[in-house]
């Protein structure tokens, strides 16, 4: 810790920074925890998917307070979450109903509380499509106005999607697992899987391969997925073997020392899994490197090594694991998760190669997803923002503090936040979630 950093975090420093308008960041609710206060459910236009989903989740719902005019009415007490079923909202005037629901709720929602809007994907006439987009603007803005770690999320529920299809998604968002996901919007399509409730350990009996698992986010992914029941195959380069072994032993998984850029990497992973008489439920392509330089200084080696590790290796490995002839490959109904990045989405100085690879990952999942729907394989990506890791700990303090606060939650995320989102995506009950890129960034100022 630098002297500057020490001073900043000293009591005096904290008092000074508070005067200067830098709030002490809220402590986020994490893990498989529900909001403390009641969950309020409202429906605009008579949609019922929200109510049915909450029932499947076993959460009681209370009625909303509606702002009907002059003095803004209050809830009287903190509420844990507001879930608005806006699946029947297609007209501009219906948005006023949403305002009337949000106004009291935004004031009353507890720390790490949730505002969740369920809507349909854009479809229909001009107005309807426009309204769909308007909801997005509302969601992003609410997320910015909420305080104390409360978040806002817009879930687009495809018309044929059932409440069961929505269980894992709504459960994820309401629980502490989605702590660092805010201002985001993604779609749940029909999954064709009968889901009756939210599973505590959805990955029981499932093999999950995590690359880059020796440290940082990868290690957190291994731990979180193991907590959810997964049998983890922890993969990392041989020089990281000691930490890799520690992670594998901690989660009761197996360690596989492997350079993912090797030509036979996919085959080696499959053989490792096949040896144990299993197939892969999910692979999390977490391994990644940076070779940052301004473009004027970026040579071919810096360029290709980043693209090879972060993007091309994934493609090669996926190809092998998706081949039905591969013993120990990806099972039908399986999951592929890539790691994109806000850098890839928004661009970042000095990271052309990295941005290319990470945007490429986002592109890859949207491209692959439709092609694998028939096999029940979902392909998604998470895009972490500023996550507190050993790697980001090396960024100079002032710069780090700026990155850390450049989001709606005024703080950096934790590796577990990324891991929880991945856990949600590879949950067998998240069958309807595919081709999505979910940012885990606290609504970083950069990017979408």
């Amino acid at each position, binding site marked *: 810790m630098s002297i500057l950093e020490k001073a900043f975090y000293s009591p005096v420093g904290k008092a000074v920074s508070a005067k200067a308008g830098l709030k002490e960041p809220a402590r986020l609710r994490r893990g498989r925890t529900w909001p403390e206060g009641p969950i309020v459910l409202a429906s605009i236009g008579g949609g019922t998917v929200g109510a049915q989903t909450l029932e499947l989740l076993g959460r009681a719902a209370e009625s909303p307070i509606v702002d009907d005019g002059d003095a803004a009415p209050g809830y009287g007490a903190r509420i844990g979450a507001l879930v608005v079923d806006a699946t029947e909202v297609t007209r501009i005037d219906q948005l006023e109903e949403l305002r009337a629901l949000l106004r009291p709720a935004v004031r009353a929602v507890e720390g790490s509380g949730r505002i969740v809007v369920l809507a349909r994907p854009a479809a229909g006439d001009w107005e309807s499509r426009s309204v769909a987009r308007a909801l997005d603007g509302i969601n992003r803005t609410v997320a910015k106005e909420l305080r104390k770690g409360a978040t806002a999320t817009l879930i687009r529920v495809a018309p044929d999607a059932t409440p069961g299809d929505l269980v894992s998604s709504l459960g994820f968002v309401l629980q502490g697992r989605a702590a660092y996901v805010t201002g985001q919007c993604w779609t749940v399509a029909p999954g064709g899987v009968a889901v009756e409730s939210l599973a505590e350990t959805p990955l029981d009996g499932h093999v999950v391969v995590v690359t880059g698992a020796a440290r940082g986010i990868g290690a957190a992914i291994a731990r979180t997925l193991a907590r959810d029941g997964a*049998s983890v195959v*922890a993969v990392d380069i*041989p*020089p*990281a*073997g*000691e930490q*890799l*072994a*520690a992670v*594998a*032993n*901690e989660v*009761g*998984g*197996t*360690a*596989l*020392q*492997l*350079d993912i850029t*090797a030509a036979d990497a996919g085959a080696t992973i499959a053989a490792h899994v096949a*040896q*144990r*008489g*299993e197939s892969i439920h999910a692979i999390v392509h977490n391994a990644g490197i940076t070779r940052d330089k301004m473009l004027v200084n970026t040579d071919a080696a810096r360029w290709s090594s980043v693209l090879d590790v972060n993007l091309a290796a994934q493609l090669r490995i996926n190809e092998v694991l998706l081949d039905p002839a591969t013993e120990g490959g990806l099972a039908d109904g399986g999951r592929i998760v890539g790691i994109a990045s806000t850098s890839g989405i928004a661009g970042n100085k000095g990271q052309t190669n990295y941005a290319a690879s990470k945007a490429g990952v986002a592109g890859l999942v949207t491209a692959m997803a439709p092609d694998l729907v028939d096999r029940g394989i979902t392909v998604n990506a998470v895009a972490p923002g500023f996550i507190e890791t050993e790697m980001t700990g090396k960024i100079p303090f002032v710069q780090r503090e700026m990155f850390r606060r450049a989001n709606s939650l005024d703080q950096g995320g934790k590796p577990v936040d990324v891991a929880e989102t991945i856990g949600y995506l590879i949950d067998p009950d998240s069958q309807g979630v595919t081709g999505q890129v979910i940012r885990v960034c606290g609504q970083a100022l950069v990017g979408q």
Partner: protein
Amino acid sequence: MTHSAVVVGGNRTPFAKAGGPFAEASNHDLLTSALDGLVARYGLAGQRIGEVAAGAVLKHSRDFNLTREAVLSSPLSPATPACDLQQACGTGLETTIYIANKIRLGQIDSGIAGGVDSTSDAPIVVSDPLRRTLLKANAARSTKDRIAPFARVRPRHLKPQAPSVAEPRTGLSMGEHQALTTERWGITRDEQDEIAAASHHKLAAAWEDGFFDDLVTPYMGVARDAILRPDTTIEKLAALRPAFGGPDGTMTAGNSTALSDGAATALLANEDWAREHHLPVLARFVDAEVAAVDHPGGDDLLLGPIAAAGRLLARQGLTLDDFALIEIHEAFASTVATTLKAWDDEDYCRSLGLDSKLGTIDRAKLNVTGSSLAAGHPFAATGARIVPTLAKLLQQKGPGSKGLISMCAAGGQGVVAILEAV
């Protein structure tokens, strides 16, 4: 009823020069690290293994239960029993034999064999007079009686005694012994340097190929064998000064193993059990033999493996030609050369009570991924380095491929064993 004991795989730390990167690590630390990696590779965390047998040649008295303590430090179930075994440089192979025999007898389904040595962590003992004084003082009842024995302590008694690497009965170091053997058998400097260079080149190539990715787990920031010199050449080795055998000696630091730190383990199992538990089955443990020579009577100290191999092959009805691969522990390059020469020496073999000489081998089958000259030789660990390495190589050769391991050990002993790919 006998069962089939198979090698599932192994794990070791990289090996490093004594006093090098592992200087601060104890035998306990190193052995635990090797177990950690093995447990991680095969997903054994929390599992009860039949037995873990390992040992160290240089051992502190505090490490009287070294292996059991390492098991307790590892992620294995604390219900896993362990024992310490020691047969000098043959330890890592002897522990394999012990575990394999228990599996073959049906006493256990799974077991881990291993060995560790840290010349950096060698025990330093106090002199005999001081030791006896301390014991006497400890047993005394009154303060006066406790102090009295110390009156006899002299400054010279306070000088610590490092463990000797010399053979106790002859006072000759292993290198001095081998120098006698080297001269007696007429092994040339060129021959030795050639073996040493080849060892480095073959080990380096295996590392480059990723061969050791599933055999070694890094430790303390060391990811590869630190003694390895990929760029060494016969010319460079030829420039070194003799280390043993006087000014005209042919043995140098380059063609002799360096004092090393490291630990190695091998996972063995009943073949059926391994398959049921979806563990790899690399090679079957076929048989083993240990022999010894009368080195105080003037025999060649490190030629124990000649009689051992002769008796083993005779019992199994095999010849050297039946082996796809042969691993001869490179205590010294000249050990390898003399072993090969002695196997092919009719008179010598008959003098050991063998029916005939064993013959020659195709050098292309020998130590194909390098051996102790390049990898290093933490005494007790070497056998447990070779077993998984050979098992993996045999599996790559295909079912039925046989491999022979030959290890010389202090005290004039030789340990040999046969593996066969399943």
